[in-house]
């Protein structure tokens, strides 16, 4: 019976992760295309797009991506080809497997089958989990290996022998999968070591062996972390590279009467410390969890937070019913350590809230929600009032409304609001490649504007351009040290900002750019011709494709 229930959870998880997988989110974003094209490049040449042989960091647009997802994509692309389905297959599959594995982990930890089934079911339909396991693959992969590491560690604690090595191997793979895991996993492991110190001391030898195995597996990573690219990435995204604006500091100095006051209240420790505390608690704020979600288009679900509205009730009731798992002190400590540690990667970065970097929060939260359901069930069976059905009916109404609204928002309303630009889903590039690619040989040059960022990746991806030909041409242009780069171009393609007053005089050139770059009224029919307009899903103009004579 248990097996059938877990299978059912897996089927539900699979369904929600695979339904319209290539259509929603609307299009691949530049991270996904970069993962895909680099995997394609590895298949064809054994090198990344820059010609580095089997790298441990993929430079891509200058953001140095983690390697594991790229290597996992290699067989998938070999079988299914370089397309949207191949890129989204793995996150969905690993996401669904995480759901079942998490359910098993909860069962092993708390020995409560109802809790484990409910946690699994809630995770299977969790908007937060779905958001990052239907697309944006690296996070789903990293998270799966964390769950596998915890599950196998727990199996070992309960008398297993080899599972500690599987645990060590899994945690190491998590570090190769996604950047956030590089902070989350070590801190979580410290917490685990503190919680289970007695058990670990009793079996010190295998623990040391497993630790050494993990250390050896992670050693290459340490070297790649010291590369200038990685350092640049860390400085660019975290608060460690953040400098307060000079205008702000001058203003504060001017207004503070003595320099002593300025040094006391505006020193880096105080201001950055308060920023870190603020970021940490933002991850738990109702606005983020239930109301608005993160500001970033690629992470958000329109009109709601990362959880259902009904989860507010479950979370409060769940917290009040923690006593249901009171007898499992260590496991409860693990659950809360997990929840406390999970926001750390989001905290040290500059964004005030980040659903992707704090993704690991979703798992312990699901256990608390499941406790909420158990608490409600307990109250219902104890309550003698004939009106006891009313609060249940209210809760169920809120749940079904929230769930229905989520589906409506995710499949219809969110895509209509998050299609544009690099923080969104970069819609329009596929249509642009399909139009431009057959025409490119008729022109001296094809200039693609970079306002929406990363066009070169989409052209390489959708043209399935031979990586062996691209590698010698690969060159990343950076506007400044804090920006991501753009591929300069290949063959007769140029990827750069279009300045129409100057560029329109270039003969026999094909231009593609947004209306902000190529004004329709400045397209002089004597000089140039508007070949087509590519539209966003809501009918707004995305690109003009213009040819000069």
């Amino acid at each position, binding site marked *: 019976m248990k097996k059938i229930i877990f299978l059912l959870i897996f089927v539900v998880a699979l369904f929600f992760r695979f339904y319209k997988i290539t259509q929603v989110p609307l299009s691949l974003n530049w991270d996904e295309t970069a993962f895909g094209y680099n995997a394609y490049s590895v298949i064809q040449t054994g090198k990344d797009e820059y010609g580095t042989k089997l790298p441990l960091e993929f430079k891509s647009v200058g953001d140095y991506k983690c390697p594991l997802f790229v290597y996992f994509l290699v067989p998938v692309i070999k079988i299914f080809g370089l397309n949207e389905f191949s890129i989204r297959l793995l996150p969905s599959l690993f996401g669904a497997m995480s759901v079942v594995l998490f359910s098993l982990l909860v069962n092993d930890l708390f020995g409560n089958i109802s809790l484990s089934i409910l946690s699994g079911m809630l995770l299977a339909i969790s908007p937060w989990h779905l958001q990052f396991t239907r697309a944006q693959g690296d996070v789903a992969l990293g998270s799966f290996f964390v769950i596998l590491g915890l599950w196998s560690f727990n199996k070992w604690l309960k008398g297993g022998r080899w599972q500690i090595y599987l645990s060590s191997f899994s945690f190491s793979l998590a570090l190769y999968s996604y950047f956030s895991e590089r902070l989350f996993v070590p801190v979580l492991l410290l917490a685990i070591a503190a919680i289970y110190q007695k058990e670990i001391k009793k079996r010190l030898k295998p623990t040391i062996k497993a630790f050494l195995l993990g250390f050896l597996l992670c050693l290459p990573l340490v070297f790649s972390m010291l590369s200038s690219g990685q350092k640049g990435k860390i400085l660019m995204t975290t608060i460690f590279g953040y400098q307060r604006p000079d205008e702000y500091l001058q203003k*504060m100095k001017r*207004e*503070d*009467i003595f320099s002593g*006051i300025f040094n006391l*209240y505006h020193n880096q420790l*105080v201001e950055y410390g*308060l920023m870190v*505390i*603020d970021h940490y*608690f*933002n991850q*738990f*704020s*109702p*606005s983020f969890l*239930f*109301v*608005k979600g993160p500001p970033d288009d690629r992470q958000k679900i329109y*009109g709601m937070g990362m959880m259902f*509205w009904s989860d*507010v009730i479950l979370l409060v009731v769940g917290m*009040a019913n923690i006593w249901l798992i009171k007898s499992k002190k260590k496991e409860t400590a693990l659950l809360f350590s997990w929840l406390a540690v999970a926001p750390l990667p989001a905290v040290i970065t500059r964004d*005030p809230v980040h659903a992707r970097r704090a993704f690991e929060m979703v798992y312990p939260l699901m256990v608390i929600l499941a406790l909420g359901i158990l608490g409600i069930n307990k109250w219902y069976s104890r309550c003698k009032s004939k009106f006891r059905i009313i609060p249940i009916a209210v809760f169920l109404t809120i749940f079904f*409304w929230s769930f*229905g*609204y989520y589906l*409506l928002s995710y499949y*219809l*309303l969110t895509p*209509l609001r998050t299609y544009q630009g690099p923080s969104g889903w970069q819609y329009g590039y596929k249509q642009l490649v399909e139009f431009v690619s057959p025409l490119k040989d008729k022109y001296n040059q094809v200039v693609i504007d970079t306002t929406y960022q990363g066009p070169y990746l989409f052209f390489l991806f959708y043209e399935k351009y031979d990586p062996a030909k691209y590698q010698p041409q690969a060159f990343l242009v950076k506007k400044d040290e804090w920006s991501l780069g753009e591929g300069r171009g290949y063959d007769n393609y140029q990827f750069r900002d279009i300045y129409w007053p100057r560029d329109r005089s270039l003969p026999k050139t094909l231009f593609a750019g947004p209306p902000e770059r190529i004004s329709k009224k400045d397209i002089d029919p004597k000089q140039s011709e508007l070949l087509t307009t590519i539209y966003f899903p*809501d009918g707004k103009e995305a690109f003009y494709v213009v040819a000069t004579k």
Partner: protein
Amino acid sequence: MNLSIIIFILLFLMSPTPWTLLFNFSRLSKAEINFYKFNSPVFISEINFTRGQIKEAGIAIYGKIFINKFTYFMKDAGQRYLESFDSHFLFTQGDLSIEKSTRNSGPIYWIWLPFLGYGFYLCYKNRSKILVFVLLLPILGILIREEYETFSRLPFIIGMYYIVGLGVTEFFNKKKYYWTKALVLILLVFEYSRFLHYLLLHYPYLVGRY
């Protein structure tokens, strides 16, 4: 008088809210109260726009069920209720209006956060009705149009300080943790002086008093 009540009053008087409101008393006393409007044009146009998009997708009935005045009002009300509990409002920034907040601290100092948690735990453990009462107080915030508005949340803030007071009293009544107690006092002095420094030196520039 009960020690926790005295501590609660002291804590509230030391908090940023009364000082900031007092600082701008003359302006705020003339300010108009904008009540929440169920039929505001923004509200209606958003519903109509979203419904239009759903209709175009050929599932108009779905739109009627999920996007209507009632559900939008309930969602908005829920949002306004929950924003009272936002750490950004409570601890970091407070009201969005510069006349009701220095924007450098919320109504509650960060140092009180652990005591707030401890106070909630004590209320829950003792099945205190005050907990339910405090949790109901943010409903007042739903009535005002502005988001994160302080006046309508004053009773809630006072309630939160009562709970902080419970936590502080219980903690300082314990006979151990001398170093922690000393640290709490040092941090409190720091936070309080930091707030006063903002209020007296930077805030006047922000509200145009210089």
